[in-house]
């Protein structure tokens, strides 16, 4: 985990990590969210509707923005204020995603940073993008 303070954060700083989306993650997300839409839980149904398999929840993909901010950028001192995300391409179980964030703005007076984030799959396709606003707490 990173421990950046507001004074250590500068425009252009970048952090990234990779993660494989597993069936277990998808099933846990179904349990947590109780979103039982068949596109997410029924393989045959999803295939009949043009997908390669069960469609991974967009909000599961977005949950990696939480890890990006809370563990990497800024890390320990993060208080998440806002995540504005868009989904560009489907994500399937087994996909390996690279989650990357770059600091675009630093507002020291209000101890806040704005991060431009993107998630790409193993084929280099952008599956999601987001603008994250995070507070950086002082302890």
């Amino acid at each position, binding site marked *: 985990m990173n421990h950046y303070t507001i004074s250590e954060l500068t425009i252009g700083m970048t952090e990234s990590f990779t993660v494989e989306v597993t069936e277990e993650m998808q099933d846990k997300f179904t349990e947590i969210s109780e979103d039982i839409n068949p596109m997410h839980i029924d393989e045959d149904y999803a295939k009949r509707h043009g997908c390669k398999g069960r469609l991974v929840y967009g909000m599961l993909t977005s949950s990696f923005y939480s890890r990006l901010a809370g563990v990497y950028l800024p890390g320990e001192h993060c208080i998440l204020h806002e995540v504005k995300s868009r989904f560009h391409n489907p994500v399937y179980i087994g996909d390996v995603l690279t989650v990357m964030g770059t600091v675009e703005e630093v507002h*020291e007076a209000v101890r806040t940073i*704005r991060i431009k984030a993107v998630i790409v799959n193993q084929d280099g396709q952008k599956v999601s993008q987001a603008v994250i606003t995070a507070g950086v707490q002082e302890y």
Partner: protein
Amino acid sequence: MSREEILSKVNDVFHDVFDDDSIVVTESTTADDVEDWDSLMHITLISEIESAFGMKFQMKDVVGMQNVGEMLDIIEKAVS
């Protein structure tokens, strides 16, 4: 940039931040006058105003501001 122009641009920022084009801020507007202007939205507002005007507030400014007029005073000094 004149004070009127600054106020107009500040109004635009309020519209974007609060997603409400009906807001009309004046020099005497305070957080009590705008629905949803809470502490978190204040942080968002300050950061959006910094971006819009290409300036930076000091932490003491953020704490001490009593109304939009005082906000304009700081912006006016920064952009002049």
